[in-house]
């Protein structure tokens, strides 16, 4: 399909636009600028691009220094290296000082594909979510990615924007406006809430179709901001449907499912299931094969929904 685009494709192009609009963005990458697409920004604004080589810790530290000099510093690399390899730099330099560093690594989740488990980052939402002051955004499509990059660029403080390698269909209309901290009800339903982020939004919508054919009315919520989470929308939806399934291309530990469970357990406990990677590492394969292998396909979401609806009674 021609309208399928990876969220990473919005990265470099949006930075080019922002610079043209006068936002003082700079980009720091670690020898992966072609893969992350920051190379497009490097081509357009070479003076505002810094390639640190294979050195992710330095990437984050240099970005922090650039931010201290008044720039809005975006960093690239792959999610696994950009978070895990540079975690202490993100914690102690970026977040502890509250700097204008916007981490937007690509190649998150298992849809990285054939590179295998070493490169498939399924703990990054958890790692970033626990950092005080960090905002965690997961775009469902390239339109959302651009909107999030724009909001991050113009909102002070640290951000984590989780970008992916695999092409995804358009979920949001062109020009969709992203509001930090808001979850979006994409489809209304009465029997179960499917709360998803990233590439799982597409699967949740497909699962809602499957469920509709079986007489189950599913509400689909795009939890575009995982932190600060939109507790109001999630609680409201959970109270109306009485059952929740979280859907994420991430470990079931610490990510979106955990964030939703934290909200619901304290305020509106309802039966819940978490669809995600079950505490194992990834493996080589094609993206769609892997989504099936790890139980992240639309059919798995629908099955979890049926279980959680059954648990209501």
């Amino acid at each position, binding site marked *: 399909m021609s309208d399928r685009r990876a969220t990473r494709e919005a990265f470099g192009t949006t930075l080019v636009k922002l610079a043209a609009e006068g936002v*003082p963005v*700079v980009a*720091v990458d670690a020898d992966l600028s072609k893969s992350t697409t920051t190379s497009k920004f490097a081509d357009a604004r070479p*003076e*505002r691009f*810094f390639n*640190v*080589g294979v*050195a992710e*810790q*330095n990437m*984050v*530290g*240099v*970005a*922090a*220094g*650039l*931010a*201290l*000099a*008044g*720039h809005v*510093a975006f960093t690239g690399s792959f999610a696994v290296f950009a978070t895990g390899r540079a975690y*202490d*730099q993100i*914690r*102690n*330099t970026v977040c*502890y*000082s*509250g*700097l204008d560093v916007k981490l937007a690594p690509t190649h998150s989740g298992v849809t990285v594909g054939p590179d295998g488990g070493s490169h498939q980052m399924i703990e990054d939402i958890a790692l970033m979510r626990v950092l005080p002051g960090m905002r965690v955004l997961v775009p469902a499509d390239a339109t959302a990615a651009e909107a999030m990059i724009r909001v991050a660029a113009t909102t002070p403080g640290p951000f984590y924007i989780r970008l992916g390698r695999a092409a995804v269909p358009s979920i949001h209309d062109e020009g969709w406006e992203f509001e930090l901290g808001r979850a979006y009800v994409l489809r209304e339903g009465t029997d179960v809430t499917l709360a998803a982020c990233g590439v799982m939004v597409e699967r949740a919508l497909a699962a809602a179709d499957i469920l509709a054919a079986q007489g189950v009315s599913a509400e689909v919520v795009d939890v575009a901001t995982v932190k600060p989470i939109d507790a109001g929308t999630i609680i409201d939806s959970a109270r109306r449907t009485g059952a929740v399934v979280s859907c994420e291309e991430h470990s079931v530990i610490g990510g979106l499912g955990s964030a939703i469970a934290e909200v619901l357990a304290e305020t509106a406990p309802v039966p819940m299931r978490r669809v995600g990677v079950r505490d194992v590492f990834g493996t080589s394969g094609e993206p769609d094969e892997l989504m099936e292998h790890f139980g992240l396909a639309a059919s798995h979401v629908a099955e979890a929904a049926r279980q959680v609806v059954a648990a209501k009674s």
Partner: protein
Amino acid sequence: MTAMERVERVESAAQRMRLDIVEMIATAGSGHPGGSLSAADIVSALYFGDVIRHDPARPDWPGRDRFVLSKGHAAPVLYAALAEAGYFGRDHLATLRRLGSILQGHPDFKKTPGVEVSTGSLGQGLSIAAGLAAGLRLAGDLTSRVFCLLGDGECQEGQVWEAAMFAAHRPLANLVAIVDHNGLQIDGACSDVVCLGDVAQKFRAFGWQVTEVDGHDVRALLDALDAAGVPAQAPRCVIAHTVKGKGVPFMEGSADWHGKAPSPEQTADALAALAAQARVAEGSAS
């Protein structure tokens, strides 16, 4: 101000800073005296030898030089300098490490006027300083320099060399790294823990211009820092050979005093020794 007056001013400020360092760590009951005392002459030279351009009344003055204390555990030496310069009242020094204090155990950018960035997790300052140096130039500031003080034990962190490689590659001519080379770290001599080898040669091999200096010879230190502060074709590194615990006889050259507070008796001894040195210095100056 003559060259002699400049040296005297740095030396007398360093003497007061050493007294403050010992007193504040003793009052706090914890902290890192060894590496604070070894760096006292270096930090005094930066702040009171007119090496760093800064304005205590305007900590966020855009035209200032930046100082990044990468060896963040030496926070007391920075706090002593900032209080001496007038960034905040001296009464704050007695609150070091206390709940609610503006003076945290390690430098906190959000709490302390004059602290350029939070540090304390070792190995990160040179990357930050490199980003600052590049960012200032990019913003059109062609005069501000960035000075970064590292510990020698800290140079065991790999990120230091990631930053060193990057700074030389750009090259960042407005960046000065200073290594407080006291030869000791928490677990003992650097040469016993993991030998650093020739730190000067290492920086040279990474493409830096390096000078070595006695880090307690203020005149030589000022000469080295003055020269390093003039933009050149490469980033500059000043290896300052120092004595850990310098000025307090029972702390000098002892890794045991890396990170503990003196007892009341030891504090009295330390302050008496420092005061005696100050009197000798004053006598020789007059």
